[in-house]
């Protein structure tokens, strides 16, 4: 007898058109969020806040009540949603430019206030939707359309290590960085995302996961090579791991 071991999560919209580029990790990240919400049986009680960038299309895939925030303001809007409806599960799905550049103040202050929110941040070291410009997480040496000779320290300064910064905020209950380059790492990513939702559900504070992701189109790489880059170039700079978890000892 055949057993189904893999299926589309129930909370996916029917006939949703997949608009991410081939090899982009957004698809895996969205799926993990969907699986976690489904396992926690809280999709019907959840409100998503989608931010500007490729991440905004989350509402096209997940059949959730969703609010679109201006660029950088996702965690301010999520704060408003949660303060108005404290019983709802509220999360943001953002890119690194949204979370850590234009929205750094909103992100840090949501963490500092200890808002009971979950924030998922896709770090692909570039601005994807606008065509691959230098972002807050572009690593030293990386060539982008606005760092044509590579990001050098003298000219552009340092990239931000988001998960470490968010871990420093007293209101943060959980902060982790994960990657999606291998199956074991995808499993770890799911665990982290689940934890970031659980701390919210328990009212413990801000839950955060930074997901190292590919952007094959703007990196001008095949999907395979893109995952090699995640391992070889990104992970030495942005080390995966749990940076804060107040539920552990």
């Amino acid at each position, binding site marked *: 007898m055949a057993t189904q071991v893999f299926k589309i999560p129930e909370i996916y919209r029917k006939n949703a058109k997949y608009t991410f580029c081939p090899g982009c990790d957004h698809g895996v990240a969205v799926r993990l969020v969907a699986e976690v919400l489904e396992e926690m049986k809280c999709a019907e009680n959840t409100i998503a806040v989608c931010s500007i960038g490729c991440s905004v299309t989350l509402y096209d895939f997940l*059949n959730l009540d969703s*609010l679109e925030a201006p660029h950088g303001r996702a965690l301010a*809007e999520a704060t408003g949603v949660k303060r108005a409806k404290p019983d709802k599960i509220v999360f943001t799905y953002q890119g690194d430019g949204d979370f850590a550049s234009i929205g750094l103040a909103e992100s840090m202050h949501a963490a500092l206030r200890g808002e009971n929110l979950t924030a998922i941040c896709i770090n692909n070291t570039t601005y994807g939707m606008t065509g691959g410009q230098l972002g807050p997480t572009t690593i030293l040496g990386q060539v982008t359309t606005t760092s044509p000779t590579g990001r050098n320290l003298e000219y552009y300064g340092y990239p931000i290590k988001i998960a470490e910064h968010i871990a420093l905020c007293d209101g943060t209950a959980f902060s982790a960085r994960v990657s999606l380059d291998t199956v074991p790492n995808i499993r770890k990513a799911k665990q982290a995302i689940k934890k970031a939702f659980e701390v919210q559900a328990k009212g413990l504070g801000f839950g955060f996961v930074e997901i190292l992701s590919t952007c094959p189109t703007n990196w001008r790489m095949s999907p395979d090579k893109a995952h090699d880059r995640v391992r070889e170039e990104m992970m030495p700079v942005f080390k995966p791991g749990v940076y804060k978890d107040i539920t552990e000892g």
Partner: protein
Amino acid sequence: MAVDCLTDKKVLIKGNYAIANAAVLAGCQCYFGYPITPQSEIGEFMSGKMQELGRAYVSAESELAAINMTIGACATGVKAMSSSSSCAVSLMQEALSYATSDQLPVVLVSVMRGGPGLGNIYPSQGDYFQATKGGGNGDYKLIVLAPSTVQECVDLTYKAFYLAQKYRNPTVLLADGLLGQMMEPVTFKPYPYPEIDNSDWALDGAKERDGRIIRSYAPLADNQCVFLERLYNKYKLIEENETEWEEKDTQGADIVLVSFGSTSRNVKTAAKILRLKGIKAGILRPVTLFPFPSKRLQELSNTVKKFVVVEVNMGQMVYDVKLAVNGKVPVELVHKPVGAPPSPEEIAKRIEELL
């Protein structure tokens, strides 16, 4: 100053406290703000009162955050507001543009001070353009209500919440530093408007229905065309139904003085002075700045010889009056750049000079 102001007795109260009180009485569940003179009393009052009532107050990290938090709360269907002033309202323009597109009932109290830039904390009407023409991108309108007394600060705060809900459109209460800081006797009556059912659009979790999306992103041009037509049909409806103004002695008047907000108080007295001198002067005071009483001004231009617009700025509303009158009769401007409105005597004198 507390919510127990709900009494038949008159209370002497500062404009900013009156607005905050009225918002609480209107059922505002969430307040988000960042301090700026001359409206800080609103946030100060709200910080204590909202906590006491089990409602939400957040000291936002910026006005950008404050107005976006307001959007977030409004998206869930509760009444929510922010308040700010001039240079800080500038920071909110992006969100106001989004809120019109999202069709969310955001209420913003804008207490004008001197500008441009940091300007000063004196009263001003220099943000007429900011409120009525918008500083955000794209085609949109905010409903704008302009109180002229502290009592009206209360009544129009109620109305701001009602109209915002009724039309799902951001609504601005446009006061100024004078109204915010002055004390006047006020009666707080209960919120007089019906509650609007928002169960067909508010975000409360997709239970036994598809997930709702509140969005402004319209990747296809055709969709945006349809949306904007629909949005502007709504604005037309607002113009037809909600245009409000005060008018006095315009029957048989030779000149009509047009002014709004705190300035209109002295303009009323100036009109009296002029009439005592035998000059047939009437007044028209727009209460709603959008929708603007253009039709009424147009009608009056058939019988009136001249309009004089009086405002505390370099001349902003005067353009809307000129548009309405459309060259039929002269429209003159009597203005003061910033500060308390010119005295009735000065206004009367300057108008006499124009005749």
